[in-house]
């Protein structure tokens, strides 16, 4: 265990550690606490400059109601779900297949294709921007949810393939061999052996991709123009422009935008962290 467990330290260390941890957590979260406090306040507090004191009114719910009534926030959120959920399903399904293909078959181009997926995953978005926007235009999908989803699925396939391939590679190969000797077709090996065994990886990928796509801002800006298809990140940005002085509403909007990924994270914490830290402890 590193560092030495605090329980083995003198009493004074233990006490100061127990004080230090919450204090540092508080300092670390000041920005988030600030925005939460602000979302509770009314315009009165904001104009009076009361940012850190006790809110004079508790208006969180009325602020949220305000946001929903006076802005297209609801439609932004729905759009975010319409973009995020199909992307998660598509990218995970496709990468189960590519991951399986690259993990359990030997063929010449295998590593080359694998490294192409990895390299593509790290490429700066800007080098893709103009051709992707053009392509989306030509397919008649500019400014539609479908156009954005298609791109997201394609791009996320890179990361997901890396993830899935490494996961499937770590499964015992004898399983597949035994099934092959029994005459199981390759399709059935995939459906009946690989897919059930990769459930933890599927879960981890789903939460990760959900968060990535929910929080995407760049592609929403490039491929979407109108409110009808705009996700919440781009929506917040446009509200940010309009609402320079009504920070309590902007704060409420930000909190609304943050809620789904935060819930996702807390529900699936183990998977989420397992996914993010893939490779942090070995090789």
């Amino acid at each position: 265990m590193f560092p030495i467990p605090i329980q083995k330290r003198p009493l004074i260390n233990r006490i100061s550690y127990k004080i230090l941890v919450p204090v540092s957590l508080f300092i670390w979260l000041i920005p988030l606490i600030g925005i939460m406090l602000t979302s509770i306040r009314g315009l009165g507090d904001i104009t009076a400059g009361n940012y850190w004191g006790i809110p004079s009114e508790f208006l969180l719910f009325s602020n949220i109601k305000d946001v929903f009534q006076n802005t297209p926030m609801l439609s932004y959120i729905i759009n975010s779900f319409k973009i995020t959920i199909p992307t998660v399903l598509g990218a995970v399904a496709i990468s189960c297949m590519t991951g399986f293909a690259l993990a359990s078959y030997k063929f010449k181009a295998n590593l080359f294709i694998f490294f192409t997926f990895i390299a593509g995953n790290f490429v700066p978005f800007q080098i893709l921007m103009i051709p992707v926007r053009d392509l989306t235009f030509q397919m008649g999908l500019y400014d539609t949810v479908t156009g954005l989803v298609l791109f997201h699925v394609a791009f996320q396939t890179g990361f997901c393939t890396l993830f899935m391939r490494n996961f499937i590679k770590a499964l015992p190969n004898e399983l597949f061999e035994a099934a092959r000797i029994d005459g199981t077709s390759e399709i059935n090996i995939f459906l009946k052996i690989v897919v059930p065994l990769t459930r933890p990886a599927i879960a981890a990928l789903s939460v990760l991709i959900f968060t990535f796509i929910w929080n995407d801002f760049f592609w929403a800006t490039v491929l979407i123009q109108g409110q009808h298809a705009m996700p919440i990140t781009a929506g917040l940005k446009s509200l940010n422009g309009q609402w320079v002085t009504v920070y309590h509403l902007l704060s409420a909007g930000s909190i609304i935008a943050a809620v789904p990924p935060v819930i996702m994270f807390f529900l699936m914490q183990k998977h989420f962290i397992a996914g993010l830290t893939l490779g942090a402890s070995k090789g």
Partner: protein
Amino acid sequence: MGWFSTTPFLNVPVSTQITYRKSSWWKLNQQRLTPWIFLFPGLLLFLVYVIWPIFNSLYISLLQWDGLSPAIYVGLSNYIELLDDEYFYISLMNNLKWLILFMLAVPIGLGLAIFLNQTIFGIRLIKSLFFFPFVISQVVIGIIFSWFYNPRGVIGPFLDKLGLSNYAILADENFATYGIIFAGIYPQIAYCMILYLTGLNNLNTDQIEAGRMDGAKGFSLFKNIILPQLKPATFLAIVVTVIGSLRSFDMVAIMTQGGPYGSTNVLAYYMFETALSEYGYRMGYGSAIAAVLFTIMMFYILFFIYRMYQSEKKGL
């Protein structure tokens, strides 16, 4: 394996002949063809949306094109123009600032991870709360920090005390970039922290105990025994931090849009602005900027791939 030779089947009715031949052909080649069938949808999408656009962008960078009217081939003149573009250099310098300062996220994340790697009551919840900023959209982080920096915002009272009333860092062309980087590094520290927490969790206890027996303590224990074991985590932390720093688009777009006077531009944002915003639709010039960014990133990508290739070779 001679699946095309029809003679052995001549005495079989045609319909069964075909199915039999098909299935036997399939049986013979199943092993060889299956990976390609499984790869097909993913590979196709990836080629169309990721690989081809890279080359297409490199080609567009040789054009003068507004996206609508016919493009004119201009050779390297976009790149030559870049050499004289003041904003390009500002962006490049800012990218460098991002890169260097972002690297601080790695040791800070390590420090936090060591600090939190204890088992006290509620530590799991505390760790997750520390990780919180990474889960939230950068747009939200950007909005929070803009509000923070606003002299009439939450930081105001403290600025007054420091004698800096009405100081707006995001409006100060000398310091605005640092203000954005500070906001950007916040979630990045959380990410590095979680990587190191996982690394610390998987340390080899025997080695540590042996080291302690030999009298290794404090920093020398850390440097000689812990840090080498954390190498995979460090590698990953550096990779994601470099890439995160070069992808610094969201924060700039939210907090300053490149201003004041272009002083907070980074290549990622400057490219976007050149190709798709008020600067006019200069697709060729934008692509040239993207190509520069791509080249810088490519060093890291190749380095990463090289590392993976080495470990793959070991694994085989």
